[in-house]
């Protein structure tokens, strides 16, 4: 019995719609407006058409160069954290207990990093990684690796990656755990009856059943890592040099740092376009086979 179509439903949607329009469309219009103009700060604007976009997409220009390098950094960063967090999340989900009080304890502990303000996550690792007052910094230097995330780009990258793994892996684990929990007990019984080994159970039942949640985890993690700003900004401020200057830091630098509105706007729009494309993939996955969490029969 599918949903009736009734355009009066727009009355219900209108309030939320108007507010989101106010907070999204109007600002986006100003961004588009800036991106086609040039200004010297004293509120005089000169039409520049697609000038900024051409410059942006041309690696030889200063703006284009910065765009491509920071885009490259973002893609590398996202690739690395996905390669670590997705498998690790699956393994942790599989090693979580299935019933008893320990389940609740695990869920709470694993959720803690997800609830910490992103700048405090940066602060934690900023302190933790310092060689003078941080356990990690002191330990690594004690062992002879002169680890210094402020000076050495490689150490900075390592710190940011470990920080992100620390911050978000439990989300992947929790998503996989939810996927595992939705598998009816009968499947495990059938596998036991068929004499399946643990590996066979994983490949035949768990992985296929986790397929959808894994896809959601990958997309969520890609998008969040692609627009990361606060944590690297707090720990390395985009440095040393601009080795950890991601796209979002670049945009803020140009917009609020140099007040170069045109360039920042153009960069923002292209940046947002990438997000839109990934969102579209996310949307088709999420609304493809919509799982119906049955509220009446208890939590999903």
């Amino acid at each position, binding site marked *: 019995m599918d949903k009736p179509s009734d355009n009066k439903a727009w009355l219900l949607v209108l309030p939320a719609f108007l507010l989101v329009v106010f907070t999204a469309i109007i600002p986006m219009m100003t961004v588009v407006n800036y991106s086609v103009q040039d200004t010297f700060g004293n509120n005089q604007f000169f039409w520049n058409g697609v000038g900024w976009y051409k410059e942006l997409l041309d690696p030889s220009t200063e703006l284009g160069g910065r765009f491509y390098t920071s885009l490259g950094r973002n893609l590398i960063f996202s690739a690395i954290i996905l390669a670590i967090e997705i498998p690790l999340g699956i393994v942790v989900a599989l090693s979580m207990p299935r019933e008893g009080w320990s389940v609740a304890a695990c869920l709470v502990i694993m959720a803690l990093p997800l609830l910490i303000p992103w700048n405090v996550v940066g602060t934690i690792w900023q302190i933790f990684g310092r060689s003078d007052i941080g356990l990690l910094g002191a330990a690594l230097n004690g062992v002879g690796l002169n680890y210094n995330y402020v000076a050495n780009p490689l150490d900075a990258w390592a710190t940011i990656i470990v920080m992100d793994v620390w911050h978000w892996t439990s989300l992947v684990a929790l998503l996989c755990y939810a996927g595992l929990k939705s598998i009816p007990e009968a499947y495990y019984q059938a596998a036991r009856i068929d004499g399946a080994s643990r590996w066979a159970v994983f490949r035949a039942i768990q992985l296929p059943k986790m397929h959808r949640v894994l896809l959601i985890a990958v997309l969520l993690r890609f998008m969040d890592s692609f627009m990361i700003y606060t944590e690297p900004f707090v720990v390395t401020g985009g440095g040393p040099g601009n080795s950890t200057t991601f796209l979002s830091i670049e945009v803020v630098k140009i917009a609020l740092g140099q007040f170069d509105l045109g360039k920042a706007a153009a960069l923002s729009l292209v940046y947002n376009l990438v997000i839109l494309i990934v969102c579209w993939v996310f949307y088709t996955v999420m609304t493809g086979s919509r799982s119906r969490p049955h509220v*009446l029969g208890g939590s999903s």
Partner: protein
Amino acid sequence: MSITLANVSRVVGGVAHIRNVSLELERRTLNVLLGPTLSGKTSMMRLLAGLDAPTEGRVLENGQDVTGAHVRSRSVAMVYQQFINYPTLTVFENIASPLRVQRRRKKEVEERVRNAARLLKLEPFLDRLPLELSGGQQQRTAIARALVKDADLVLLDEPLANLDYKLREELREELPRVFENSGAVFVYATTEPSEALLLGGNTACLRMGEIVQFGRTIDIYNRPSSLYAAEVFSDPPINRIAITLAGGKVTFPCGDTRPARGQLTQLADGRYTLAFRAHQLTFGDNTDQSYPFCGKVLLSEITGSESYVHVVWAGTQWVSVAPGVHNLLPGMTLVVAVDPREAFVFDETGRLAAAPPPASGRG
């Protein structure tokens, strides 16, 4: 109060769920919508209730057009197949909910809810939550809520379908008593002919969104106007055999011919379909008038009181039902016979050509 569908059709996504149906239901009557799954029973009920609006045609209440009216303005109650109750309210509040909305006095609400609860044996559960009860009790709560309101139109959409075998039997036996003393128009959807016969009143046979026949239940059972109506009104499915009548002789698909008997004698020559229900196909050739067939047993289904024996003869499958326990082994040969005087005869277009006289035969 009478409720009428005038040339109503409902097309959803290009598919016609209801095709040009006209139906008038009188006050204080019980009407059964009988048909297989996906024959349009639920769609029709939702149109009657006003939950869905027809694509064409009008819905009339006492002659007034209520086609687009919101259900709230209508006096309608409905019981769904998957026993819908308010999970956060107790059974008492669930039943009282329509009266609470009408802001009835507390005393009146108390009294009417207790009456409905007594009628459906729910007194011991009034302060429990619906989800704590068994399927049967949850459905009784939903039925009690539908009755307490004294709505003009009460709709029940296959209310027993999700219940255990024995629970279904108990509730089915109580339903006639529950409906008796209410002045509403009752509409009851089901796939089982035995429920239609038990409830009596009128029946509309539905097939693919159309009403094949509408009339008093027992009349349709005894004189289905078409092969479709006979199919809808037979469980297990009606047995049939193609015959050709020529000069007082009946020839069967396997070639052998027999003298025409019973009402076959008064029919013009031509090709017909002889149709007979399971209990009209008897074991052995016990009456001189009947036509015997030597078939092979496929399976014998035992319910305790009766046994359904599935037989195949010359490629066509039939079902015969006999009282008692008959554990026949598949593959056994079995002589079955049908007395033409008790069978139906349909012409090539499927319209009824001849039917057994209602009172006497075993029809």
